[in-house]
């Protein structure tokens, strides 16, 4: 016996969640692309191809106001953001590479400083993961310890079935609670035939060995070879489900304004520019090396996790074709 939900009921579930005051974020069509965005109704839900940007925005938005201020007759008034007012959220349709990323980022956001903006959103969000059924030559989740059917990070995990509908697996407590709220939308089916999962190509790489190799090759020709071509944009970091660097800026006038937390990227030359004018990462290949090291060494050193879920977005949208999967394989071949 397997728990299933029809396509129609899934959309009804989204509609009912929205009606009950839950913010539902899911893949939505926007022109030629799909983006994870708040849905206004179930009909907008567009599962299928990997959305252009990752689902990290549900927890860590591109730009968020962390406080606002206004000068009035009674002096300066500062308004903190009430994190208790964050909506209850369901992230639906996150593919395994997107669903697994928040668990990785939790470590850094709850380390020495507890980032309440991120953590509060995490506490209030239920993730409905989707099994992945199509991969291209940029996908490499299998190289970083995930797979198209990995339930890591999901609270509820849906697998598309041949002939429509989904089989449904409860992974976390929150998934069970969600299910309990709308039991009539789910049914028990005797036999189910899942759509075959995607099969991303690529030679498996031993990440522990990659890390060891990186430890010994901080200075190596490979960085110039693969990253001299880097032009220093933030496309890779901004599309990445696990990149989490941000910058804080004050905007507005002296009368009224906001303090905002915006995404930042280690590829930007300003990222490490000191006030003195000195820049320890003075050329682009060093900036790219940092990105790679952070994902496969530093983050592991600190938190025991790999900061990459193999979604392949940085490969597909790199203006100059820098290929993190290729680099991993190349390093794998050098042990």
């Amino acid at each position, binding site marked *: 016996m397997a728990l299933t939900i029809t396509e129609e009921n899934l959309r009804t579930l989204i509609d009912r969640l929205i009606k009950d005051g839950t913010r539902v974020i899911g893949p939505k069509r926007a022109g*030629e692309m799909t983006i994870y965005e708040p849905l206004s109704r179930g009909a907008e839900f567009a599962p299928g*191809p990997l959305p252009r*940007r990752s689902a990290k925005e549900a927890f860590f938005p591109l730009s968020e106001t962390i406080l606002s201020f206004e000068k009035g007759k009674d002096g300066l008034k500062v308004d903190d953001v009430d994190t208790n007012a964050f909506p209850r959220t369901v992230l639906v349709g996150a593919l395994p590479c997107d669903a697994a990323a928040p668990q990785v980022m939790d470590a850094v956001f709850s380390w020495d400083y507890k980032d309440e903006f991120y953590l509060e959103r995490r506490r209030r969000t239920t993730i409905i993961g989707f099994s992945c059924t199509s991969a291209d030559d940029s996908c490499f989740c299998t190289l970083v310890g995930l797979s198209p059917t990995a339930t890591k990070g999901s609270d509820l995990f849906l697998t598309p079935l041949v002939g429509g509908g989904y089989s449904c697996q409860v992974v976390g407590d929150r998934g069970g609670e969600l299910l309990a709220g709308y039991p009539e939308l789910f049914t028990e089916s005797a036999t189910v035939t899942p759509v075959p999962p995607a099969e991303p190509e690529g030679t498996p790489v031993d990440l522990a060995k990659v890390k060891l190799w990186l430890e010994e090759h901080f200075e190596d020709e490979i960085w110039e070879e693969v990253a001299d071509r880097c*032009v220093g944009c933030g*496309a890779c970091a901004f599309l990445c489900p696990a990149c989490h660097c941000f910058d804080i800026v004050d*905007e507005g006038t002296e009368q009224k304004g906001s303090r905002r937390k*915006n*995404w930042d990227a280690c590829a930007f030359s300003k990222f490490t520019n000191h006030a003195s004018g000195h820049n320890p990462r003075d050329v682009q290949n060093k900036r790219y090396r940092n990105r790679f090291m952070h994902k496969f060494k530093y983050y592991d050193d600190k938190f025991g996790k790999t900061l990459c879920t193999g979604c392949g977005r940085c490969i597909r949208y790199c*203006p100059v074709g820098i*290929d993190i999967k290729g680099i991993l394989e190349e390093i794998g071949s050098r042990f």
Partner: protein
Amino acid sequence: MNKSSEKTKSTVTIDTSGYEVATQEIRSEAKRLLTEKIVDAVVGYQGGRRGGSAVPVVITDPDQAEKLVFSAACVNNLSIYLTKAKKEIRAKGKLAVVAKGCDLRALAGLMGESQFKREEVVIIGVTCAGVHRAGTQPGQPLTDSTIAKKCRECSVHIPEGSDLIVGKLPPLPNLSPTEKELMEKLDAMTPALRWEFWKEQFTRCIRCLACRQVCPFCYCEQCLCDRGRPQAVDTSPRPSGNMGWHIVRAMHLAGRCAGCAECERVCPMDIPLNLLNRKMAEELKELYHYEAGLKPVEKGPLTSYDEKDDQSFIK
């Protein structure tokens, strides 16, 4: 998983057999230039891991010349590597660069702006029938539906003025000028509707700045839009700052942009940025009969003036 640019109904295929010839000629020329020490490095394209893909590469060893390729996947404008935005490449010494016709126009513009002198660079010009549009899965044939928008209206298939021109031009099909058609539609709109259009486009912008970083003309060491004090444009990726950023970008490229459309190609959010550049180019042509990138000229249209310039808009 990429955006579905490969519409199956396409029938017009562009003959790219000339690219094989070009590849061979680029290799032997690069080898010669490096062996005879005429240049210290060659900026070209090499094949990537993904089947049929091509990525920029800088080679310094004559033996590496065999890596160089030219194909429909060679979309990058390599002139970026000759600007001061990429000092580490220039530090390698005298450079040779592989350039398509459209890239050559950027090189001409850069020379006009004294970024380098003609004799400092060896230009290997490639006869080009067109390259892939953004999001094309590498390895696809070059067809009506996989060709870049700029190539549909290309007027510089042969890079005149290069030190060596390689490859040969196949017979070219007539392709509909999609960008021109889109431009006409936008021009016909009311300003309010155009505002809605651009607002929608810019709202998607995530300020990854790929458009800036990939642009040969955005070589400023300090971008006005990165500055905090005074802050010209909000740096937050929000609709207001995005609108400011794209207006400033278009203005700063007016009269300089030669239309390589790299900004539009690299935009991960598919914003049709070249429409802005194209509009500015059209206006400059109409107002001051100036076209960017035709030859190195010292003064662009916005760094020079004529006492008889139109001033009908000034009271």
